[in-house]
């Protein structure tokens, strides 16, 4: 392979919406078909340090998005990514819009930053996937000091912080608002 100048001479393939039938290729078990071998699913981690997150993606009219596919990627409990990183994907329930996944609470990443889980949202009507982050309410002080969130308003930071769940099976609630007054902060990573 040549080691020539890095000139970025090709352009990235443009995105198109994942559409309403994203489940066929990415989450067949959600439409009653068998998952493919080793296909990422809603459980990325079990054991000490595992947490269950649930929530709803809302559109600009306040309606649940019932056809979203959500991916999550985070560090393991020791803060390791790369080969030790934890990846999975889940889908909104067709009836309620609730999504749910289980992974590790990520260990600390870089000093001076708050640990987070990277979240991508794909759905009909979303032309290029949206990227957000799930931070944990126990890390409030680190969140407020995190350089990545310096330009994010307090309400924006709140939109990125999961809420400790008080009932049900989940440990945390993380609702995502695509548009409007309570709009979630999205990132250009």
């Amino acid at each position, binding site marked *: 392979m040549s080691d020539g100048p890095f000139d970025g001479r090709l352009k*990235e393939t443009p995105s198109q919406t994942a559409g309403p039938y994203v489940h066929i290729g990415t989450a067949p078990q959600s439409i*009653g078909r068998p998952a*493919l071998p080793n296909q990422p699913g809603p459980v990325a981690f079990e054991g000490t340090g595992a947490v269950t997150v649930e929530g709803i993606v809302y559109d600009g009219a306040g309606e649940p998005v019932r056809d979203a596919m959500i991916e999550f990627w985070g560090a393991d409990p020791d803060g390791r990514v790369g080969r030790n990183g934890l990846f999975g994907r889940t889908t909104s329930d067709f009836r309620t819009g609730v999504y749910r996944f289980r992974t590790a609470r990520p260990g600390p990443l870089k000093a001076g930053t708050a640990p987070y889980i990277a979240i991508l949202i794909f759905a009909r009507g979303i032309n290029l996937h949206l990227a957000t982050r799930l931070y944990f309410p126990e890390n409030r002080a680190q969140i407020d000091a995190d350089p990545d969130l310096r330009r994010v308003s307090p309400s924006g930071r709140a939109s990125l912080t999961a809420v400790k769940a008080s009932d049900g099976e989940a440990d945390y609630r993380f609702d995502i608002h695509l548009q409007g007054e309570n709009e979630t902060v999205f990132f250009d990573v």
Partner: protein
Amino acid sequence: MTVHPFYRRERNQHPPALTPNYKSSVLRAPFRPLVSPEQAELDWTGPAFGHDMLGPLDNDLIRNASAGGEALGERIIVHGRVLDENARPVPNALIEVWQANAGGRYAHSNDTYLAPLDPNFSGCGRTISGADGTYVFRTIKPGPYPWPNNGSDWRPAHIHLSIFGEAFAQRLITQLYFEGDPLIPLCPIVNTIPDPAIVERLVARLDFKNQMPFDCLAYRFDIVLRGRRQTYFENREEGA
């Protein structure tokens, strides 16, 4: 820690979030500007997929959902290379595909189009690029179909592609169209991309020479993922 930054995503190469002729985007497009954090380890690493995860028929949609026969339709192979913006091959890229059958019907509980299902076709497959970035899958050419947008709009024949490169920053989902399809310029989803020259990069080209004689036509489709600003060799971490 050594940094492996990616070029910033050139958002003018992608559709904007709000595209009113594609009505579903209107309530699903964020209004506020995106926040640009510094790239970090979670961005420049990603989940790894190996060839050993694939079943033998994962990349053969003609046979991988067989109920005793083969899928109906125009038999094609789709092949090409996964490259980055620096024209370097991206090996081990997972490509997941989904599509309608030859009549334009998806095997999905939410699709109510009147065209019949094909009992030998699920429209789900996947493949992984080789060391030189090449990939291939075999399928049938999907049919166009109507959908409720501006009255009855029609989707051109298309295959959905979900691609994982070596890093989460390269994540991409897109759609492949077919050379010569007169529905391409009429489609509100295609036209979320304002520049027709950019749309051309989503059009697979007939690759007549690479047909499988008396079996399948071939289409060629190269995929470009984001590239890194510096060489792997200068910055590669030990063991990374």
